[in-house]
C-alpha cells in the first residue's frame, strides 16, 4: 500500500523533472545547444538543508495520510462530477450541493484504493452549497480529521485535494498547494442560494471538478470544502482566488444534514447597516422576530453577535451565514451607551416552499437561482466530461434501494425516519403510555406554595392553580393558559400525545438535527412536532437519547412555553418527571412539583364536576 502510493508520488516528481527539462528546451532552444540541457540534468550534487528535507518529508506524509479520504464523485450519465471528503468511518462524506444537485438519490464515488462505491444522498443545504452523502459497503472508511477553521490565519500554508477537470480516472486525488489569502470572507449568493459566508480564500489552485473537495491545513486536518472561484476574462479556470466553505460552518449543519432534510439557513429578522464611524446598527427589524421580543430595536448598535465583535456588515453576514435556522445565538447591543445582552433564536431564511424547490430531484424542481449577482464568479457544476470507466450511468443499486425515500422537503426521508426511531427509543424509560386511559389527572405544587390540579380530557383541559381556574377547550385554538405560562396546558397536551400516540396526533413529526441547548449550551438532538398551529421542539440528550424537555409555541412568532424535566419517578405503572420547570419568554413561570399523575377512563362522565 505504502510503496504503491509512494510510487505515484514519485512518478509525479519524475514528470515534474521532465517538465523542467522540456521547459528549458522550449525557452532556451534559440540560444542554447542540447549540451546545456545535459549539463542541467547532471549538475553537481547540491546539499539540501535538513530542514528542507524534513519539511518535504512531512508534507508528503501528511498528503499521503489524507488522500484515502478524498472522494471522486461522478455524475449520472458521465456528465461532469466533483469531489468530496469522508468524515466518518461509516461513510458520511461532505461535498457541494451544486455537485449532487439533480443527481437523484444515488451516485458513484471513487476512492484512491481504486474502487468505485455506491453512495446515497443524505441531506442538502442549498443556501450554504453543502451536501452530505453516505458511501456504502464498508463500515471502516478512511476519513479526514476535522480541524478548526476559526484558527486558520492569513498566510498559512494549505492544500486542496480533489478531482479538477476530472483528471483522476484512477481516483488518485490531485493535490494543489497554496496559501491562505484571506479568512472570514463573504461571497454574495446567487439570489438567496449558494451564499459563501465566513469562507476561507486560498491561492491554491481550485478548478472545476474540485468542487466539494477538501481543503487541509498542513497537519492534514480538514478546514474547508472548496466550492467556488473568482473568474474573469480567462474563462472558468483558477486565477488565484478560490473559496472554501469553513469546516466549522459545515459542522454546525452536520446533524441537520444527517436528518435527510433540505436544511435552511437563518436570519435575525432584522437588517443591519454600517455607519461612517465603523459601527453596525439595526436599520429595520421585524416586529414578529424574537430579536424584537427580546428588546432589540431600530438604531441599536450590534456590539457582538454569537460571541464575535461586529465591525462591518460583512462580518455580521458572515456570522449569520454559519448557523442553521432555529439556532440560538447571544447578541450584545448598545443603546444610548447602555449595553444589553440577549439570546435569540434565529428565524428561517426561506419559506418552506422556496426550500422545497431546492431538493435535488427533478431538474425543474431546482431552486430558483436567479441571475448571478457576479457573472464573473461562482463556478457551477464542472462541465468537463470524464472519460473514465466509472462514468457508467448510476442506477439505483438493488441492495441499497431501501436507503432512499423521496419526500417533499427532504433530500432523503429515509435518514429522518431512522433518526425518529432512535429518539423515540429514548422515551422507553417513561414506560408504555399507549395503553393508559385517555384521561389524565395531575396534582402538585407550583413554586412550593400554590396547589395545582390539572385534568386532561379529550374535550378540554381544566386547571386549578390556587384559587384561579383555566380551561382550554379542544374545539378552540390553544391559548396562553394559565395566563403567563405561554400555553402550559397546550404543552402538556403535546407531551401526552408524544407519549401515547405520536403517529396519530401530530400532523408533522420530524428529526431536525442538533443544536446548542438554551439552558446548558450543550449540543442536543431536536425533534419537531406540529399539531394545527402548535409546534413543539423536543430536546434529547446526545448518545443516551434521554428527553430533557421541550418548547411549545402556540403560533408563529410568539415565545414558546418552555418545559424542562426533572428526574423520572414511577406513577401508576409508567414514569413521569418529578418536577417540571416552566419558562415563558424571558420570565420563569415556576417549578411544578408533581405529587401524582393518575389516569382515568370515561372522560365524558368526569368533565361535569371539574368545570367551574
Amino acid at each position, binding site marked *: 500500500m505504502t510503496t504503491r502510493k509512494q510510487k505515484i508520488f514519485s512518478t509525479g516528481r519524475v514528470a*515534474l523533472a521532465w517538465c*523542467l527539462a*522540456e521547459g528549458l528546451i522550449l525557452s532556451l532552444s534559440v540560444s542554447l545547444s542540447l549540451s546545456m540541457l545535459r549539463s*542541467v540534468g547532471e549538475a553537481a550534487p547540491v546539499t539540501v538543508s535538513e530542514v*528542507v528535507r524534513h519539511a518535504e518529508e512531512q508534507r508528503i506524509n501528511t498528503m499521503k495520510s489524507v488522500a484515502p479520504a478524498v472522494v471522486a464523485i461522478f455524475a449520472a450519465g458521465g456528465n461532469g462530477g466533483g469531489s468530496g471528503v469522508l468524515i466518518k468511518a461509516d461513510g458520511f462524506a461532505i461535498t457541494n450541493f451544486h455537485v449532487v444537485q439533480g443527481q437523484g438519490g444515488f451516485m458513484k464515488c471513487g476512492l484512491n484504493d481504486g474502487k468505485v462505491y455506491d453512495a446515497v444522498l443524505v441531506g442538502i443545504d442549498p443556501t450554504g452549497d453543502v451536501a452530505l452523502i453516505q458511501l456504502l459497503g464498508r463500515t471502516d472508511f478512511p476519513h479526514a480529521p476535522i480541524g478548526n477553521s476559526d484558527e486558520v490565519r*492569513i498566510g498559512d500554508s494549505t492544500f486542496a485535494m480533489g478531482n479538477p477537470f476530472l483528471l483522476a480516472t484512477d481516483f488518485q486525488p490531485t493535490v494543489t498547494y497554496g496559501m491562505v489569502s*484571506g479568512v472570514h470572507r463573504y461571497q454574495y449568493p446567487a439570489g438567496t442560494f449558494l451564499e459563501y459566508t465566513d469562507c476561507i480564500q486560498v491561492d491554491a489552485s481550485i478548478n472545476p471538478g474540485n468542487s466539494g473537495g477538501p481543503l487541509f491545513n498542513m497537519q492534514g486536518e480538514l478546514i474547508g470544502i472548496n466550492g467556488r472561484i473568482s473568474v474573469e476574462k480567462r474563462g472558468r479556470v483558477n486565477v*488565484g482566488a478560490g473559496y472554501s466553505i469553513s469546516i466549522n460552518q459545515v459542522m454546525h449543519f452536520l446533524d441537520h444534514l444527517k436528518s435527510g432534510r433540505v436544511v435552511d439557513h437563518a436570519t435575525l429578522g432584522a437588517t443591519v447597516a454600517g455607519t461612517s464611524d465603523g459601527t453596525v446598527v439595526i436599520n429595520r427589524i421585524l416586529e414578529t422576530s424574537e430579536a424584537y421580543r427580546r428588546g432589540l430595536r431600530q438604531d441599536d448598535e450590534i456590539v457582538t453577535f454569537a460571541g464575535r465583535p461586529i465591525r*462591518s456588515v*460583512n462580518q455580521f453576514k458572515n456570522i449569520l451565514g454559519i448557523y442553521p435556522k432555529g439556532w440560538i445565538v447571544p447578541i450584545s447591543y448598545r443603546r444610548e451607551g447602555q449595553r444589553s445582552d440577549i439570546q435569540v433564536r434565529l428565524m428561517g431564511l426561506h419559506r418552506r416552499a422556496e426550500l422545497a424547490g431546492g431538493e435535488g430531484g427533478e431538474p425543474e424542481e431546482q431552486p430558483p437561482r436567479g441571475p448571478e449577482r457576479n457573472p464573473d464568479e461562482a463556478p457551477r457544476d464542472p462541465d468537463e466530461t470524464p472519460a473514465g470507466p466509472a462514468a457508467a450511468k448510476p442506477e439505483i443499486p438493488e441492495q441499497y434501494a431501501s436507503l432512499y425515500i423521496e419526500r417533499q422537503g427532504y433530500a432523503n426521508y429515509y435518514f429522518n425516519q431512522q433518526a425518529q426511531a432512535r429518539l423515540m427509543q429514548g422515551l422507553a424509560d417513561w414506560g408504555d403510555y399507549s395503553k393508559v386511559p385517555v384521561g389524565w389527572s395531575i396534582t402538585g405544587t407550583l413554586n412550593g406554595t400554590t396547589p395545582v390540579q390539572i385534568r386532561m380530557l379529550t374535550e378540554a383541559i381544566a386547571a386549578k392553580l390556587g384559587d384561579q381556574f383555566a380551561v382550554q377547550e379542544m374545539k378552540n385554538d390553544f391559548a396562553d393558559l394559565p395566563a403567563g405560562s405561554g400555553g402550559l396546558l397546550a404543552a402538556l397536551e403535546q407531551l401526552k400525545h408524544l407519549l401515547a400516540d405520536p403517529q396519530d396526533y401530530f400532523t408533522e413529526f420530524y428529526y431536525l438535527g442538533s443544536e446548542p441547548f438554551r439552558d446548558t449550551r450543550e449540543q442536543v438532538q431536536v425533534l419537531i412536532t406540529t399539531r394545527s398551529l402548535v409546534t413543539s421542539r423536543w430536546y434529547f440528550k446526545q448518545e443516551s437519547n434521554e428527553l430533557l424537555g421541550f418548547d411549545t409555541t402556540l403560533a408563529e412568532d410568539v415565545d414558546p412555553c418552555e418545559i424542562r424535566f426533572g428526574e423520572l419517578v414511577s406513577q401508576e405503572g409508567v414514569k413521569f418527571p418529578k418536577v417540571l420547570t416552566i419558562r415563558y419568554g424571558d420570565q420563569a413561570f415556576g417549578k411544578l412539583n408533581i405529587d401524582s399523575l393518575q389516569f382515568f377512563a370515561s372522560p365524558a362522565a368526569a368533565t361535569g364536576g371539574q368545570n367551574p
Partner: protein
Amino acid sequence: MIGPRVCRLWVSVHQVLTSLSRKGLCRTFSIGLLVVCAGLLCGGSVQAQSADIHGEDIHDAIQYVQQRMVKLYGAGGLKNLAGYGTGFLVSPDGHIATVWSHLLDADTVAVVLPDGRRMFGRMVGTDSKKDIAVLKIDAVDLPYFDLSHAASAGPGASVLAFSNMFKVAVGDEPVTVTHGVISARTDLSARRGRYQAPYTGPVYILDAVTNNPGAEGGVLTTYDGKLLAMLGRQVRSDQNNVWLNYAVPISELRTSIEDIIAGRLHRTDPLMAGTKPTGDGFKGLDFGLVLVPDVVFRTPVYIETVVEGSQADKMGLKPDDLIVFANGELVPSIRNFETVLQSLSPGDDLQLVVRRESELISVTFQVPRQKR
C-alpha cells in the same frame, strides 16, 4: 528518493537562469516563453518548501504589509473596467501610490484604510512615463512603506503579492495575499487592447496570477515583508498575446513618487488609454475584403471584391454582399464598419452578418495575429 534530485535540478535551473540574467541574455527571450517556463518550474511543490520553513514570521510580515495597503474605489464599473483597485501608503501623512488608471478618472476616489476608515483621496500628481499616480488623504501617523528601504530580488525569489483583486475585501478586512515566484526580470513590452502600455522599463514577471481586476496598484514583497514592486495593469504581451503578470520595481518608481509628493513632477502625457495605438488598426483588406469606394457620408458597406485565397474568400463572401452587422453592431455605413475594425485586437473574433439578396449569412473571422 526523488525529492532531492528535483531539488538539485531546481537549483541548477535556478543557477542557469541567474547566470543568464547576469550575462544579460535574459532579455533576449520572449517574455511569454519565460512565463511558460516559469509556470512549469514553479507550479509544483519545490517552491512551496520555503513557505513552510518561514513558519511564524510570515504572519507578522503579512500583517506588516496589510497595514500599509488601501482599497480604492473610483471611476469604472463598465465591462472590463473595474471600479475598484489597490494602493499603498508611502508617507505617514496619507500619500498613496497606485497605478495611474481609469479608476482615478473620477471627481473623488474613495480610499478605505486597513482599519476600515473611509476617506476621500485627492490627486497629487502623476507620472505617465512610469504609469504611476499619487493620491493624498487627510490623515496623520499612518503606517507606511519607506521607499528608501525597498528591496530588490532576482528570478527564483519567493514573493508575496497583496491586492484587493476581485474586491474580495471590504471595510477593515485585510486585502488578499497570494504567493509566487519571480520568473524573470525584463523590460515590459505590452499592450492593452491595441494600445501600447506606456511603461517600457524593467519589471518582474511573476508566476502567480496578479493580472486580475482590482489588483493594479497592489504590492509585491519578499517573504519577510520588504517592499519590492508595485503590481501592474491587466495587459498582454504585445509579442505573443499572453496575459502578463508583472510588477514594477520600486527602484524605478521611487524618484517619481518622491518628486510628485514634493510637487516637482506632474507628467500626464502620453495618456495610456488615449491616442497611441500599437499600429494603424485593422482594415477590410486584412480579412481579404475590398469595399466599394466610400463616397458619401453613409456609404452602405457593400463588398466590391474579395481577395482570392483570403479569409473572406474561404468564408464564401462574394462581391455585392452587404455587411449589415459587425460583432453584433449595426453598421449602416463604411465609416461605422471601419470603427469596428479599428477596435479589434489580434486574436479577437470578428463576426459579420451579410445580406445576399434576401438571405442573411453569418460568418466569423479570426483577427490575424500579424497585420498583412
